[in-house]
C-alpha cells in the first residue's frame, strides 16, 4: 500500500481499509486530514486543551470502532461532527463530577494587540453560555456549518438549532457590551 494511494482515498474508504484490511497507515492519513478541525472544535466547546485532546481521541476511536454504524446516511464530516459533539458532551458530564482542569490563558498574538481585549471578552462570554448554545454558535460562526448540519450533529431539530444560535448570540452581544453606534443592549440569558 502506497501512502500516496491512501492520500487519494475518501474518508470512508480509509476507514474501510483499516477496519477490513488492517491497513494501519489509513489511521494516520485520516488523522492528518481531520484532527485539526476536531481538536479545534472540541477546544472551543470544552475550553481547554487537555479535554480537547481527550475528546479528539474519543472521536477517532469512535470513527474506527463504530465504522459499521456509519452507512452513508450522512456525509462523513457530519458524522465526524456528531462524534465530536457526543465526545464533548460525555466529557463535560464527567468533568461535572470531578475537578475541572485549570482554564487556559490564550496568549494574544502579536499582530492582534488591539484585539486582545476583544478576544478575551468573547472567550469569557462564550464560556458562560450554556453548552448547547455555545456548541451551536461555535459550529455556525466559527466553523461555518449550516443549520441542518448542526442539527444533525447535535441530535436537535433545525428550529431548536436556530433558537440556540439566536439566544447564544444575544447573550454574547450582551457580554461584549454595546457595539459602537448601537443603543440597544441585549440581555443575556442566565445559564
Amino acid at each position, binding site marked *: 500500500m502506497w501512502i500516496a494511494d491512501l492520500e487519494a482515498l475518501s474518508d470512508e474508504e480509509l476507514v474501510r481499509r483499516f477496519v477490513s484490511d488492517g491497513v494501519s497507515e489509513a489511521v494516520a492519513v485520516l488523522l492528518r486530514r481531520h484532527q485539526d478541525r476536531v481538536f479545534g472544535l472540541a477546544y472551543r466547546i470544552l475550553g481547554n486543551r487537555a479535554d480537547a485532546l481527550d475528546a479528539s481521541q474519543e472521536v477517532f476511536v469512535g470513527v474506527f470502532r463504530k465504522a459499521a454504524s456509519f452507512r452513508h446516511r450522512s456525509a462523513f464530516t457530519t458524522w465526524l461532527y456528531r462524534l465530536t459533539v457526543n465526545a464533548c458532551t460525555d466529557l463535560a458530564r464527567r468533568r461535572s463530577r470531578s475537578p475541572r482542569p485549570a482554564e487556559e490563558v490564550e496568549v494574544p498574538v502579536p499582530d492582534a494587540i488591539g484585539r486582545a481585549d476583544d478576544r478575551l471578552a468573547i472567550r469569557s462570554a462564550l464560556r458562560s453560555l450554556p453548552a448547547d448554545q455555545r456548541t451551536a454558535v461555535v459550529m455556525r460562526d466559527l466553523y461555518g456549518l449550516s443549520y441542518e448540519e448542526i442539527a444533525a450533529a447535535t441530535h436537535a431539530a433545525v428550529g431548536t438549532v436556530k433558537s440556540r444560535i439566536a*439566544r447564544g448570540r444575544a447573550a454574547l452581544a450582551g457580554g461584549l457590551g454595546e457595539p459602537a453606534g448601537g443603543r*440597544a443592549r441585549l440581555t443575556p440569558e442566565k445559564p
Partner: protein
Amino acid sequence: MSAHAGTELLSAYLDGQVPEAARARLEAHLASCPECAGKRAALEAAVGAVAALPPVSPTAGEKEAIRRGVLERVTRAGQPAGRGAGAWRPTLRWRLSAAGGAAALVIAGVFAYVAVRSSTPRATTGSAPAASSPAAPAFSSGAEVLAYAASLPEVAQGVRTHTAADAAPATDSFLSRLAASPEAGSTSTGSAPTGSAPTGGAGFSASSPRAAAPAPEKAMASPAPRPGSLAGCVQSVISAQPGPVVPLAEASVTFQGRPAWLFVFASGPAGATGGPLSQVDVRVLAQASCATLNQSSFAP
C-alpha cells in the same frame, strides 16, 4: 412591519435564513426602527467576534498523543485476549509512520530491540522477576521475544510502508517522544527533546557494545541523553546501525527475570537512501548498561 423584530428572526436574517417576503418586511422595519437596527448590529458584532477567534490546532505533541492513543485503542480492540494487562499497556507505544506524502514502498522490517536495563549481567539471572515492573510481559528466551514481536499488530496486520527517506524524521520524533515521556526510563525527562537530530548517545557508548562509533553526521552538539534513559539507549542503538532505521515500537518487558526494553524498528542496508527498509530485528538490552542480551531478526 410595525412590531419590533425578535432576536431569533434577526439572528436567522444574519444567516440568510429568512424567506424572501419576510426579509423584505424586516429590512423595511430595520430602516425605520433604530432599536431593532441596534439589536441587529449587536448580534452582528457577536457573530464577528466569534468568527474572529483564532483557529486552535493540536501541537505536534498533542497530535502524537492522539495518534498513539487512537492506534493503541483501536488496534487492541481487534486483538484476541491475552495481552490485555492494563498495567503494561501504557508502556507500549506504537510507532506508525506518518511519512508525509512520500511515495513509500512496502517494507517489511520490524527491528525489535529489547533492552534489558540491568547494568552488568548479574549472577542472579533467572532469579525472581524484577519488582520494578511486575506487570510487564516476561520472556525467558529470544525465541519468545521474536514470536511476540512477530505477533505485534503492526507486523501481523499488515506490511509497513517505510523507506530510508523516513528514517531521519521518524527517528527524531520517536526520540523526542521518548525523551519527553515520564516512562522513558529511570531518569525520566532528563534529556531535553529539542527536535533536532540527536547525538550518537555518548553517555552510552562506553557501556553499549553496539554504540562504538557514532556516524560523523550524527555527532552534532545537542544534549546527550542521560545514562539510564530509554531514549539514550535507543539512540545509541540507532546510531550504531550502518543503515537507515525507522523506529516502530518499544515496550517495557521482563527478560529472564530482569526489567527490559522491547524496541521494534525497520532497518535497511548501509548507504540506502531511498529504498524500502526490509528487515525486522529483535533485541534485548540491559536497562542500566544498554548491553544487548538478545537479538534476532526476520524479513516478513
